[in-house]
């Protein structure tokens, strides 16, 4: 018996069965189940490793085939022909195969249509250019300044009502802002500023932290220098001026 060296890429157990039926030139309505089962199992053995999900489906089909084979081997009830039409154990499988087969054929037709379409090209629309040529309508729609103000008042009033519950909006100072503030202060005082002075206007604890962090950051970047003449002496903060001028903007980038 000739084994195919290259196992064709099948889509699933039904696909394999259809292939076997075709190869053996079998009437699909009268499948020699023993032969097909044998070849199906041979195929499975030949594939080697399948991925786990597929394996279960292929094995399930093997079980189905075997159980059909067994049913067909069992002696038929004697009076079956007279009393009733006994259902062919292959019936359900044949129906499944036929149904799958027709979609498989349609898939092949789709493939041809796909190929035929692949040589017709649609115009590539440059959406960005179109948008610039035909700018979208007013993105605000019919919204007027008044509408917006009303919406804002509405929100504020709503927020007002909830104020007791909600934490009060507090003014937050960021490190970035603090850095800017310190640099500006130092620029005005080339002789340096006493460390504590930088905290003189600071009232809230979080601002103290932010100020301190800002100073550390400035020192790390080499923007400021800290000098102390002796133990417990005042710490003086200087702006380090290098060649070329610097504006405060440079420090906050």
């Amino acid at each position, binding site marked *: 018996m000739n084994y195919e060296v290259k196992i064709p890429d099948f889509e699933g157990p*039904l696909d394999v069965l259809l292939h076997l039926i075709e190869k053996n030139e079998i009437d699909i309505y009268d499948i020699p189940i023993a032969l097909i089962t044998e070849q199906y199992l041979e195929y499975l053995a030949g594939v080697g490793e399948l991925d786990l999900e597929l394996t279960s489906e292929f094995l399930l089909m093997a079980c189905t085939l075997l159980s059909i084979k067994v049913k067909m081997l069992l002696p038929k009830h004697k009076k079956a022909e007279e009393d009733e039409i006994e259902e062919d154990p292959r019936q359900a499988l044949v129906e499944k195969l036929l149904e799958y087969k027709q979609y498989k054929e349609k898939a092949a037709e789709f493939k041809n249509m796909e190929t035929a379409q692949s040589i017709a090209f649609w115009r590539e629309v440059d959406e960005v250019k179109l948008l610039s040529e035909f700018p979208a309508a007013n993105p605000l729609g019919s919204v007027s300044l008044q509408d917006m103000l009303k919406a804002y008042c509405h929100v504020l009033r709503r927020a007002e009502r909830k104020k007791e519950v909600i934490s009060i909006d507090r003014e937050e100072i960021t490190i970035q802002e603090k850095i800017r503030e310190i640099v500006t202060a130092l620029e005005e005082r080339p002789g340096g500023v006493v460390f504590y002075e930088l905290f003189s206007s600071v009232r809230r604890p979080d601002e103290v932290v932010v100020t301190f962090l800002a100073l550390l950051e400035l020192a790390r970047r080499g923007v400021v220098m800290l000098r102390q003449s002796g133990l417990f002496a005042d710490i003086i903060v200087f702006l380090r001026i290098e060649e070329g001028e610097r504006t405060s903007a440079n420090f906050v980038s």
Partner: protein
Amino acid sequence: MPTLFPDDTKSIIEALLFVSGEPLSLKVIAETLGRDERDVLYYLKEIKADCEKTGKGFILTEVAEGYSFVTRPEFAPYVEKIAKPRLMALSQAALETLAIIAYRQPVTKSEIDEIRGVKSESSLNTLQERGLIKEAGRRDTAGRPILYVTSKSFLKYLGLRSLEELPKLQETEKIENESK
């Protein structure tokens, strides 16, 4: 039937077809122009004939419930050199899944799995990513599974005017039962 500036109407239709990346339906063209669909159809036929006659680089096709200019197929070897690269052709698995959805829509994943005898998850993902199928609500049964249908792009992809143009299934008996 043709009116005031017949030539302009035809040219405007050309301009609309030209600017739209998607097929334009008779209805949309007619509404845009404020004209009868019958008039528009008349001009569309003329535009189609013009393209054929003068051997233009593009032709007018009727696809996906609308009209669209596409490049003349025989020029594909040149056009594909400058056009955006096409997506890969669909895999066998994706084509089978697409066929099942096309003929049985709306249909659930487990129904597709059942027919194919294998899981169709990744095919469904591919088809959805490429816009060839879309979700259309859920079936009102246990688990409320998602229903899939084909999209307009599907028609465009296969060059079909509408779903009625799908090649007929042989098992007509079966399909009739299903559609009940």
